[in-house]
């Protein structure tokens, strides 16, 4: 079977900057950050007070009470994003379509809030037992399973967990499955809810979280800011989408991945660069075709300087004509959901011809000498864009997108 073009016909999101894609875009296209004081847990014993939290989130606003006992916060975020994505796609699932639909989700940590509560009960409160639904709430594949049950989808369904690259790996594999004809539809993306006390203490010990805010590519950057949320896409063959009269919001045209084989936490320009080149090759694109890169851009000293080197190595002189921004400066680093949030940011950037800025930018860094769209959004028409994810453990995944055809 010849390769099929893959259209994005639906998307949904929940994040610190919005409970749906309209709110999300309204914030990031204006450079408005969702980073603020952590409220979901007591922050008094943390060295960093801030995160990109979905403030005021209430389970009961989205789920019936009999359902919530089965859902961790991470799975809820993924389901909320899925519902919006399915709604925007106007897809109708027939029984034949359900068998030919894939679900591929990403999450780095799964239901670790549930795990934190269970361990608190055992170790701190000296209880002798934990909630009996802990295991199905904690499992990283819980989101994929709940999506399949909610929509009766019976095709291939699985979850990828590659730390901060999880969603990009998930979306990339779903893209390939649709492109190669293995399935006729895919629901893909990821979700994360990392704001538990135990997990935040683990991040504190890594000394990579800023006590201030996320300032990617800025000389005074002081680290990342953890975020939470979910993002989901509906992918289907271009011709099928056209045939059913669906609105096509954009296209995925390439996916590349690589491993650094270098260090468990320090990034490698060589490894990440191979993932970027691989995505370009998969898309059949010359580097000069790319107009915008949604960077991994965590705001750590190491990532941003290395990512700059990656972009310079791969793009050569074209690096000076590229626009690059890190939307993590607004929605935070949502770990296994990062790629999904950033895919939606990238699709909307191409479609709406506005490039979101790198917010919280203060001072240029010679080690990050790219056009990083500091603070002010930019009107620009680009045909192709990349979205980078470079994970702890040196696992890299890069997606290439194309704006919807006129």
């Amino acid at each position, binding site marked *: 079977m010849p390769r099929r073009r893959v259209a994005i016909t639906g998307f949904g999101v929940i994040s610190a900057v919005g409970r749906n894609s309209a709110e999300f875009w309204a914030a990031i296209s204006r450079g408005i950050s969702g980073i603020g004081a952590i409220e979901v847990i007591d922050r008094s014993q943390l*060295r960093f007070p801030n995160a990109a939290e979905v403030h005021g989130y209430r389970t009961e606003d989205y789920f019936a009470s009999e359902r919530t006992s089965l859902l961790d916060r991470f799975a809820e975020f993924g389901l909320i994003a899925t519902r919006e994505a399915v709604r925007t796609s106007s897809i109708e699932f027939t029984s034949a379509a359900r068998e030919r639909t894939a679900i591929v989700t990403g999450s780095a940590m799964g239901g670790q809030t549930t795990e934190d509560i269970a361990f608190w009960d055992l170790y701190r409160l000296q209880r002798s037992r934990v909630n009996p639904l802990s295991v199905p709430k904690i499992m990283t594949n819980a989101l994929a399973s709940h999506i399949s049950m909610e929509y009766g989808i019976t095709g291939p369904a699985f979850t990828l967990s590659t730390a901060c690259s999880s969603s990009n790996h998930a979306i990339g594999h779903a893209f390939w499955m649709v492109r190669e004809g293995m399935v006729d539809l895919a629901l893909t993306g990821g979700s994360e809810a990392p704001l538990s006390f135990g997990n935040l203490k683990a991040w504190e*010990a*890594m000394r990579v979280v800023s*006590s201030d805010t996320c300032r990617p590519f800025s000389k005074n950057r*002081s*680290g990342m800011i953890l975020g939470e949320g979910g993002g989901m896409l509906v992918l289907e063959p271009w011709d099928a989408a056209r045939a059913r009269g669906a609105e096509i919001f954009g296209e995925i045209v390439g996916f590349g991945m690589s491993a650094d084989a270098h260090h*468990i*936490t*320090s990034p490698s320009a060589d490894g990440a660069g191979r993932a970027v080149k691989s995505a370009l090759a998969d898309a059949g694109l010359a580097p000069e075709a790319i107009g915008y890169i949604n960077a991994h851009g965590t705001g750590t000293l*190491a990532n941003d300087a290395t990512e700059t080197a990656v972009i310079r190595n791969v793009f050569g002189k074209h690096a000076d004509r590229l626009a690059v921004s890190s939307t993590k400066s607004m929605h935070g680093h949502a770990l296994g959901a990062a790629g999904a949030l950033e895919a939606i940011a990238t699709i909307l950037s191409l479609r709406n011809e506005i490039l979101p800025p790198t917010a919280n930018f203060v001072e240029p860094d010679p080690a990050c000498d790219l056009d990083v769209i500091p603070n002010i959004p930019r009107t620009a028409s680009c045909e192709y864009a990349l979205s980078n994810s470079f994970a702890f453990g040196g696992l890299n995944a890069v997606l290439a997108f194309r704006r919807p055809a006129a």
Partner: protein
Amino acid sequence: MSDAVAQKVLAAIAQMKKIPPETIALDSSLEELRIDSLDGLNLFFDLEEAFDISIPDEAAKKMQSVRQIVEGLDQLIANKNAPNPLAANQD
């Protein structure tokens, strides 16, 4: 600079890198001692335990040599023992 603190820091580095403490110069940088970012995290973790202190990220970033670590720890230990409780929590 406190001798007692210096001895503990040298011992911690010696144990981590499996080298005799007397071979470690006070002015050695962490890079020269082949202590990478992850080793550094473990070293600071051990020193926090040893001295019952919290090393803020900003202070840790300034600890790039054995001498800087000892001087930084001296300061944090002095703050911890200071009468003003606010001074001990300057993160």
